């Protein structure tokens, strides 16, 4: 059974990864032999400089999901490269490195810095994090998306993946702009903007006021967006948004995704990515499929 997939020149033995910000490799806790089974790992988004993140509360549970406004708490790219990345690399699992800049220059500097470490598979541009206080997001503007993807493509030695926000009128317009700029792949979707109000205090339940909604609550919208984008672009899509089970992941693949990322589920059920992988294999066996290509985009209408 051939589960291998490609994004640009990056090869992965299977289509299952984790969504950025939802997985941390902790030596004391993780079963390394299990981790090695995943197609790729995607560490939490890294920024040029260290960020302490948003005030608490940062997360709230909602029916079938959660809302978060973490604010990309991270140690900055230099400390990441000399610290956590070294540990991640020891696992021998392909790595997709998620980065976010405040400006195009920052994105270029991040790409430059990620040209140095050996053995990375791809760079993912987080163009869509809705939590930092800005008027709009890069991935809400096709021109800004084009410009940043193009700039990074000129510099980076790695395949470039653009991660898109669902908080737009027509996500296919943004996806096309990323493809025209030379993106090797598209990650979709990031979280939906949301607000939870504490009726006792009549204040937002989140320290940052608004947050991003994730989890199974957003899955049908995510699948629909992946399907629509897959009709309009030819580059591979990493589909994500509320994947808890193999059946959820299969929906994304049938809608046209090349890879799938398990996100919020990692918090609830850390073995979810492994069960997703196992379930995809079982489904293919049962349906007598020997190559993932036979399944991808096979939605019947």
């Amino acid at each position, binding site marked *: 059974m051939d589960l291998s997939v490609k994004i640009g020149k990056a090869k992965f033995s299977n289509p299952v990864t984790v969504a950025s*910000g*939802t*997985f*941390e490799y*902790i030596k004391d*806790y*993780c*079963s390394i032999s*299990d*981790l090695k*089974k995943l197609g790729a790992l995607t560490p*939490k988004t890294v920024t040029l400089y260290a960020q*302490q*993140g948003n*005030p*608490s*509360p*940062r*997360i*709230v*549970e*909602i*029916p*079938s*999901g*959660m809302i*978060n406004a*973490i604010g990309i*708490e991270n140690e900055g790219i230099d400390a990441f490269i000399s610290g956590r990345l070294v540990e991640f690399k020891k696992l021998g699992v392909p790595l997709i490195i998620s980065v976010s800049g405040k400006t195009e220059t920052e994105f270029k500097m991040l790409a430059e810095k990620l040209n140095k470490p050996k053995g990375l598979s791809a760079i993912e541009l987080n163009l869509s994090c809705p939590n930092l206080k800005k008027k709009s997001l890069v991935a809400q503007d096709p021109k800004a998306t084009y410009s940043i993807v193009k700039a990074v493509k000129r510099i980076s030695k790695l395949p470039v993946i653009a991660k898109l926000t669902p908080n737009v009128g027509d996500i296919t317009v943004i996806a096309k702009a990323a493809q025209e700029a030379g993106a090797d792949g598209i990650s979709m979707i990031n979280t939906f903007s949301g607000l939870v109000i504490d009726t006792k205090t009549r204040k937002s339940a989140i320290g940052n006021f608004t947050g991003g909604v994730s*989890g*199974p609550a957003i899955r049908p919208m995510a699948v629909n967006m992946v399907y629509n984008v897959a009709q309009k672009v030819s580059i591979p899509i990493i589909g994500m948004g509320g994947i*808890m089970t193999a059946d959820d992941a299969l929906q994304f693949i049938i809608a046209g995704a090349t890879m799938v990322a398990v996100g*919020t589920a*990692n*918090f*609830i*059920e*850390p*073995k979810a*990515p*492994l*069960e997703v*992988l*196992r379930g995809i294999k079982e489904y293919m066996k049962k349906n007598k499929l020997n190559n993932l290509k036979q399944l991808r985009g096979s939605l019947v209408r």
Partner: protein
Amino acid sequence: MYSFMYKNQYKAKIVSNEKLTAKLYRMSLDAGKITEKVVPGQFIHIRINDTLKPFFRRPFSIYRAKNNIEILYEVVGDGTRMLSSKKNGEVVDVIGPLGKGFSLPSKKIKQVIMIGGGVGVAPFLALSDELKKIKCEQVLLYGGRTKEHIFNMKEYKANGCKVSITTDDGSVGIKGRVSKLYSKINTDPERTFIYTCGPKPMMASVKEFAQKHGIDGQVSCEEVMACGVGACKGCSIDTSKGYKTVCFDGPVFNIKDIKF
């Protein structure tokens, strides 16, 4: 075989789920040999149902780790309400022990004070068991809102712990906040060490008292958690050493470092 992503994730059978008062429950879980690994102050992260409700796991301080892993919990929302209806023999999915627990006092410490507010007393029986082993004098100052938060503390007393109780309404023990009991504390900073866990205003008052007398101590913090393992940064709190995750860097911190 695809098993578990984490080494310390397992299915635990409920040995007992006892209603102690109108609000408080005590659950005992068969965690096998993992029980031996527990450091007082650590927690377990329980997936209450294998459905999406409640969505998050729920973190619980480990109350005791003798033969089983025990938790003490208050019914406050949907998750704990569902947990309270679980029957003996049912199974829940557990990750843990997780986080950094209490460090035991140095040899020169003669008196250990545990100050608990409400269900904040939850990490202290395991600590009391350890303090008994090192033959340290121990005192528990416990404040509950009403008699619904007060339960039999014979196990502390069996460990030689002196227990004093307050309730806000005076229905049990002394009427008032637990701060009324601070007069029982030996304020020699060379010989006294404080552990506290409970509502933030209470821990803030303990910090103020400890700093006034130069007494060292540790606090066990609580925040809403998603992952419980340091991945999501959802439970980060502002400390004097920058943002720290309650689940991985804590839940136990030095009392000096926490801003209440």
